[in-house]
């Protein structure tokens, strides 16, 4: 297998389930099957035409190991398929699919993610991400950790007490699923009238310990944006993945997003693990439907924006800047 330099990859379809705060009807398969079927239908693809499948999910949300195995039935992987899975937000599954398409031997990819945050106590579940020796045993939860970042930003004069208070209100969880179809070059042009070309995508991680980082800046978002070419041309619209208002302030700063850019606020209830992928999906949808020529999407993972992904989408296949 060898790569094809300069292969252009685009998003040609995006579907999400309307997030609901608590879905008592659907388990993994019931979440995945409808979005996958609908995304393929919109792209005009049969299941057997899909070159590669990649998904994102998280066992700890559902409280059981190997959750992704059950979900895989939702794509009906028979005859056997080329497939992979990241235990991360679906945005990173999309990144893996982008890499896979760049390898040149497959032309289409399906990405999906599902999450059920309603089953457990999300801030406490997320606390399982913390350093198991010096942080997790404290009993601190993810909302408290977000509060530390909000206060630091407030002390720096870049957030208000109101932003800090928003953290204390807690987050609203929800259950959901989303699917994206990607295609390369001429295939993308055949599957969509106006494909959303991925002009850059990159992700970066920061050190884990909160006390070793400058919590008022997102250096990893800035780096990812540079490598994704986000500063080459200002986007028309930006979809940021922020759990709280202060996170959005930090992200806008890192991404140099000014008032000339339409910012689509994070929804009040965001399904964990799906949220990042839906930012990319919505950004692509605005390009696909002609609402924007250039859109930026961002996804985050980990405590206090530890890991960030930036994706730049454009209606134009060729670089114009």
């Amino acid at each position: 297998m060898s790569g094809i330099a300069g292969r252009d990859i685009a998003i040609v379809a995006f579907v999400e389930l309307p997030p609901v705060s608590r879905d008592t009807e659907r388990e993994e398969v019931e979440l995945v099957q409808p979005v996958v079927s609908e995304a393929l239908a919109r792209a005009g693809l049969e299941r057997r035409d899909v070159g590669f499948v990649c998904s994102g999910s998280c066992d700890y949300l559902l409280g059981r190991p190997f959750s992704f195995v059950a979900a895989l039935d939702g794509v009906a992987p028979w005859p056997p398929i080329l497939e992979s899975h990241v235990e991360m937000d679906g945005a990173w599954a999309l990144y893996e699919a982008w890499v896979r398409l760049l390898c040149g031997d497959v032309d289409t990819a399906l990405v999906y993610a599902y999450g059920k945050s309603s089953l457990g106590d999300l801030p406490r579940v997320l606390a399982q991400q913390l350093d198991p020796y010096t942080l997790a045993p404290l009993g601190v939860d993810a909302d408290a950790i977000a509060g530390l970042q909000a206060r630091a930003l407030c002390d720096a004069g870049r957030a208000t007490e109101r932003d800090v208070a928003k953290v204390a209100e807690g987050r609203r969880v929800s259950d959901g699923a989303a699917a994206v179809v990607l295609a390369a070059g001429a295939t993308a042009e055949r599957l969509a009238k106006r494909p959303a070309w991925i002009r850059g995508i990159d992700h970066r991680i920061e050190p884990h310990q909160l006390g070793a980082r400058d919590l008022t800046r997102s250096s990893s978002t800035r780096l990812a944006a540079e490598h994704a070419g986000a500063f080459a041309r200002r986007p028309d619209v930006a979809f940021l993945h922020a759990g709280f208002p202060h996170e959005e302030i930090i992200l806008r700063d890192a991404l140099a997003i000014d008032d000339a850019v339409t910012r689509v606020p994070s929804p009040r209830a965001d399904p964990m693990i799906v949220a990042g992928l839906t930012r990319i999906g919505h950004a692509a949808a605005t390009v696909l439907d002609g609402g924007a020529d250039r859109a930026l999407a961002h996804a985050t993972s980990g405590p206090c924006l530890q890991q960030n992904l930036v994706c730049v989408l454009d209606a134009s296949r060729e670089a114009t800047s």
Partner: protein
Amino acid sequence: MDDGFEAPYRLEYTYRRSTGAVIGRFLGALRDGRLEGVRTAGGRVLSPPLEYDPESGEDVGAPVDVGPGGVVTTWTWVAAPRPDHPVARPFAWALVRLDGADTAMLHAVDVGGEPGGIRTGLRVRARWRAERTGTIRDLECFVPHDGATPIDVARPTTEVSGPVALLPSPVRLDYTIIAGRHLRTYLSGLAKKRIVGGRCPRCRKVYLPPRGACPTCGVPADHEVEVRDTGTITTFCIIRIPFDAAPFPPPYAAVAVLLDGADMPIFHLVRGIPPEEVRMGMRVRATWVPDAELAPTLASIRWFEPSGEADLPYESIEAHL
């Protein structure tokens, strides 16, 4: 919804963490009532110590005494402490940069229960637990300290009890598990002594339980079909070791049973015959629990027993192994 299809589930386990030299030494110092950091090659002092320099990725150097005083660099208020929190009355989580350290440690600050007592820049000192076992919680919390009075240390720094090699780490997460709509159909049937499968409208195969997606066709396999409680053993194993979840003392046979009318075996137990005499192709019948004990669970079938019919030839089950 609570018609018996949601149930509490506790993910609970006490992990046995080996700590390694750097963390083990730090925890040992905490047990002695001392605070330590480590010096990086670049000269920074990290506390809590990290095993690897988060900036360069290189190994860290020698341990350094830090504290016992420090300064709050950011904080967040906890108005309603949980039982597993370090402080029983309202308190602050804070990042505390200990004197002599360049990074900050996350811990609790007890300011007497009043939120007015906490602020960035507050000088604090450690308050130690009387009983210390070598965890981050040997440091009970930080408390305000005016800086004028000397700080009591819990024990002279010359007494070193050595590293903490093993850290017991209890994890307890509470979930509410739901049975999705397809599983509910199946479980409801079992409570009525009925075995309800789902037929795929495309391939016509009957699945137990009905499924949100036929694994080979991708459409819901949920056209309800009642299958019989008789079937054929396709394959089996004889369990000869005891283990926690074992239903009987060994030896006993676990079997795959292809129920009459279904296209997929289910896994269950067989009794009423010595395990050595269980055969591939043997015909069996379900033994149900007494009617009063019927419930929406596969345990409503207590086990299978030989039906006395002639074995089916191997060729007839070969496709179901």
